[in-house]
């Protein structure tokens, strides 16, 4: 898709909601019909702008949840006291219009030609850009080995659960639930720490390419833990979002 990344002025445009899917009680995926979409790369995001009747505007950046070549979609988590996310997760209907611009970003991006193996680590809705990467890996026929570590509060909070299960035979996925675990839970419990990273991450000598996305404190813990394991900082790509809804 790099061929599509020609110099092009970034403009706001109007997109129409084509479909909405409830992922968890607080998370929804919104598929958008964007007339002039130039194509995107796995891991990129887009900016959404909402304008109130009095002219007040609020902008937020959301990771693109779909792979290059698929219809553009974003997955949004409703944040307590959020300005934008309650509208996107509760009010928005099919056929409604939204202002957006994008795609943007080129740092937290994976290409099928990037040397692997891949380590993907997500906290909460940080799984969204990693889902785009997993989809792109499948679409491109890449056989780069993948390990996924996904931390959620509870099992019902796991986003894309069925889809991630469909990769069962193809990638090594580990889950940890930080708040409560079902009685028959066979995954990990508790927050990601150095011991868990040492257990599930690739050995550093395999020179993995790592993508870490989640709340700021989660990303800091993981990034520090990986460097402690001997990972090259330049091969650990990070993306943080704030509980304030800044991203």
């Amino acid at each position, binding site marked *: 898709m790099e061929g599509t990344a020609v110099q092009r002025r970034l403009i706001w445009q109007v997109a129409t909601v084509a479909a909405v899917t409830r992922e968890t009680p607080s998370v929804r995926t919104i598929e958008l019909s964007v007339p002039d979409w130039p194509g995107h790369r796995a891991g990129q995001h887009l900016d959404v702008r909402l304008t109130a009747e009095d002219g007040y505007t609020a902008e937020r950046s959301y990771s693109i949840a779909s792979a290059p070549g698929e219809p553009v979609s974003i997955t949004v988590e409703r944040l307590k006291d959020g300005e934008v996310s309650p509208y996107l997760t509760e009010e928005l209907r099919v056929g409604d219009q939204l202002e957006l611009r994008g795609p943007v970003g*080129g740092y*937290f*991006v994976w290409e099928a030609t990037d040397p692997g193996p891949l380590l993907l680590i997500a906290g909460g809705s940080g799984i969204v850009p990693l889902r785009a990467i997993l989809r792109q890996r499948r679409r491109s026929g890449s056989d780069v080995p993948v390990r996924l570590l996904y931390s959620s509060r509870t099992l019902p909070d796991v986003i894309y659960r069925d889809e991630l299960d469909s990769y069962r035979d193809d990638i090594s996925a580990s889950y940890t639930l930080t708040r409560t675990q079902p009685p028959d839970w066979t995954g990990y419990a508790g927050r990601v720490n150095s011991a868990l990273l040492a257990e599930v991450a690739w050995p550093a000598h395999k020179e993995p390419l790592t993508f870490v996305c989640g709340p700021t404190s989660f990303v800091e813990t993981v990034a520090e833990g990986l460097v402690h394991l001997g990972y090259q900082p330049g091969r650990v790509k*990070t993306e943080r*979002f*704030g509980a304030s809804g800044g*991203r």
Partner: protein
Amino acid sequence: MDTLDGNALAGLFAEVFGAEMTNVTVTCRTCGFTAAIGETVVYPRLPGAVARCRNCTAMLIVITKVRGVNCVDMLGLA
């Protein structure tokens, strides 16, 4: 306050520079730390956008909008 990172400014950077910038490597003038703009520390909800060094927190890039015009200050870069 939770900080974000330079990825959150990708749209603004693209608007100002007309190109993707988060993958561009910058060097801090204060401490010499080198990292991609995507790795810089960004505080949300300030008037204007400020990207700081992840190593020493010195200001690297400041973008403010004055009467509709984006003003860019990159004095923090080596």
